């Protein structure tokens, strides 16, 4: 199973995701001997982080060295695990905010230029602490804030200046959240982590299944299914251009070969006309092949393999042999899903995704009347995250909107003559 990609320990040439204290993320590749720049968060050598477990956090020191840390927020205020480790900042605080004016940046006497200068003067995390200290001194009314506000202020500043990072493996969830939060949610049609989970569970994606897939997220859906199946089963990938768009795989640990072992591309045209799409290629007699030059033979065998693959995929289509459908596309499902249903085996599930509930509504009305489908339901799932600082537990004040909707259902074989009434009681 060459396409198994569970990352445990940071290795050379791996692609991974760095997370900064601000929770911004960055995709990197671990090139041997290379260095990675985090901009104002410093620079470090790849060699220094290889061999640690994924999930490890580090602090950037001088000379591109790093210091492993228990967690990225170790010693920071919003993390109670290390309350005792809080740098002993000793400031006067007010019992309440009554003397504090709402003047925003007016209160701050230290300038952006001064901060920039300080950052250049030193390296390592000490700089961050120095900058924060300076900022506090420059803050005209810091001592008029309550301890609560002071803590909040410090945490915000620490997140902004602390030179730390965590190295996370390229799981589907990490990849999705990287795109959704730090790039553009539209690239993955607004899909959220919780909705992806729904899609996968409702389509009963599991190792060994043979799934039919539409993926307009640049490959995130395929990536997710490969992660779950770990080399066991197949993905028949429908595409609407001359080849599937899997741009996302450019920055992952899958090779072209690994991909082609699990992912069988098929165009919409081939899908709707499998007979007409079969290659007219006739294999040559064995003796002719044996007589070929080595180069010609290789080329010939590669062609044979490709033709067999395409035909095998067409066989699955013609045999209505799929174990499930995952449909994540902006092609109006009303115009296509009813045609696909026949290609599924009996009692197999499907998940249709849309960023917009309105798009799924029309399909739902149609499938409610389609006797080949049971339990066509539209699901919505939204996760709320909380702050868990002891004494200050509350849901986060803001989060990313959207996340999409999933319609699922089960393919069945209706019997001619069955009375329609009473079916949906």
């Amino acid at each position, binding site marked *: 199973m060459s396409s198994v990609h*569970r990352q*445990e*320990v940071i290795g050379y040439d791996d692609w991974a995701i760095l997370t900064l204290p601000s929770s911004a993320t960055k995709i990197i590749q671990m090139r041997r001997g290379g260095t990675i720049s985090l901009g104002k968060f410093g620079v470090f050598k790849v060699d*220094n982080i290889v*061999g640690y*477990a994924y*999930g*490890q*956090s580090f602090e950037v020191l001088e000379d591109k060295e790093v210091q492993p840390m*228990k*967690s990225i927020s170790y010693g920071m205020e919003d993390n*109670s695990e290390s309350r005792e480790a809080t740098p002993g900042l000793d400031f006067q605080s007010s019992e309440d905010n009554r003397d504090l004016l709402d003047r925003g940046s007016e209160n701050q006497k230290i300038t952006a230029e001064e901060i920039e200068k300080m950052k250049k003067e030193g390296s390592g995390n000490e700089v961050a602490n120095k900058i924060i200290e300076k900022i506090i001194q420059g803050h005209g009314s810091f001592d008029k804030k309550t301890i609560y506000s002071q803590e909040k202020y410090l945490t915000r500043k620490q997140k902004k200046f602390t030179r730390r990072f965590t190295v996370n493996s390229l*799981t*589907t*969830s990490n990849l999705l959240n990287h795109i959704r939060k730090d790039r553009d949610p539209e690239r993955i049609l607004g899909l959220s982590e*919780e909705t992806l*989970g*729904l899609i*996968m*569970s409702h389509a*009963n994606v*599991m*190792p*060994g299944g043979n799934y039919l897939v539409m993926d307009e997220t640049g490959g995130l859906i395929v990536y997710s299914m490969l*992660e*779950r199946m*770990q080399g066991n089963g197949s993905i028949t990938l429908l595409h609407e251009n001359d080849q599937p768009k899997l741009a996302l795989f450019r920055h992952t640990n899958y090779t072209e070969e690994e991909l082609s072992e699990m992912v069988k591309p098929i165009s919409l045209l081939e899908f709707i006309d499998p007979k007409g799409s079969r290659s007219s290629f006739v294999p040559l007699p064995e003796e002719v092949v044996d007589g070929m030059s080595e180069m010609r033979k290789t080329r010939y065998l590669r062609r044979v393999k490709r033709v067999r693959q395409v035909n095998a995929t067409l066989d699955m289509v013609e045999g209505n042999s799929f*174990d499930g459908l995952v449909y994540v596309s902006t092609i109006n499902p009303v115009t296509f899903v009813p045609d696909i249903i026949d290609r599924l*085996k*009996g*009692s*197999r599930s499907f998940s249709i995704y849309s960023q917009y509930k*309105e798009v799924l*509504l029309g399909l*739902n009305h149609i499938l*409610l009347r389609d006797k080949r489908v049971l339990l066509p*339901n*539209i*699901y*919505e*799932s*939204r*996760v*709320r*995250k*909380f702050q*868990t600082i*002891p004494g200050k*537990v509350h*849901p986060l004040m803001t989060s990313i909107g959207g996340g999409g*909707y999933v319609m699922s259902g*089960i*393919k*069945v074989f*209706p*019997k001619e003559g*069955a009375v329609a009434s*009473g*079916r949906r*009681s």
Partner: protein
Amino acid sequence: MSIIQYKDIIEEGDLVLIYINRSQLKPITIRKGDVLNTRFGSFPHDSMIGLSYGSQILTSKGRGFVYLLHPTPELWTLSLPHRTQIVYTPDSSYILQKLDVVAGSRVIEAGTGSGSFTHAFARNIGETGKLFTYEFHEARYIQAKKEFSEHGLDKVLTCTHRDVCKDGFVVGKEQINGDAVFLDLPAPWEAIPHLEKVIAKDRRVGICCFSPCVEQVMKTVEALNENGWTKVEMTEVSALTWESRKEMVREVGDAIKRLKDVKRRQREGIEQLKKLKKKEEEEREEEEEEEEEEEEEKKKKDGEIEVEHASKKRKYEKQPKEKDRDRGYNPFGKGRRVAEGEEDFEWFDVSKNEREIKTHTSYLTFAVFVPQLTPRENGEIK
């Protein structure tokens, strides 16, 4: 058979989920000679053997029917009686996604409960992974263990009767090396200190604790922090199911036309008679309304409310489209009743929740344990 591996044809000994209607799914094991009795009729098991999963079968008289479904973890969950504690799909699917439970994962689950989530774990990890599940309630343990065997999960999981809060997770000499942990216990903080012995030491481990109350979360967060878990995150899943409905498009022009018509008739002096008729009608309507109210009152059985299920069909007052407008509708807007979505009328596609929605199951508290490896002791990569 195995619930976590699809097959195509129903054979003796298979577990089949009988779909009776939207809210009734009944698991049966196929035995020659047995008969399934439902209120829609009787279905001999013999008639199911050899059919494809997904087939519809009819009673001998052809009046009633059911579908024969292949079990999946999600359908199995739906088939369980609602009074049992169940982790439903919106929660379970998010936990599986966030804990990265995939083929080959090694999962620790306590308690097993109804076993519903156990099935979803087993489906995800497949035969290359391993699931360790613990239940302290003996009857539940016996029931679950039996079901897991019948569902072909024995190869994938080890089910243990154990109070993990007291006795921890170690099972014989087996190396558990869990990389994902799920705790659905009244006091997860008592189990957390025992995890150290059974989680993997060479890679990142994820945990999710499932607790309904805020106070439980607070204690759990404390225990996680104290026991070396980091990236503690409290979350909550809000899930909704949307029904698609049709809402009639009523246009102001129609209402105005109706009013004009009334006015014209009034002018034509034929109004007197109509008025009498109308009054009668209104009175009747009022009476009906009151009767309806009384009936509802009765239904409430002196204070206890029966929740109506939302699927009952709504009725609309007739509101014909342009082409029908001349077909003598009643000027007082009391035409014949129209069924939702009836042809010859215009409809909005709209969506609606169920009458009663689930607004809370539990808080999910996630965290990770990252082993502090030392690859470069003495400055060298080990």
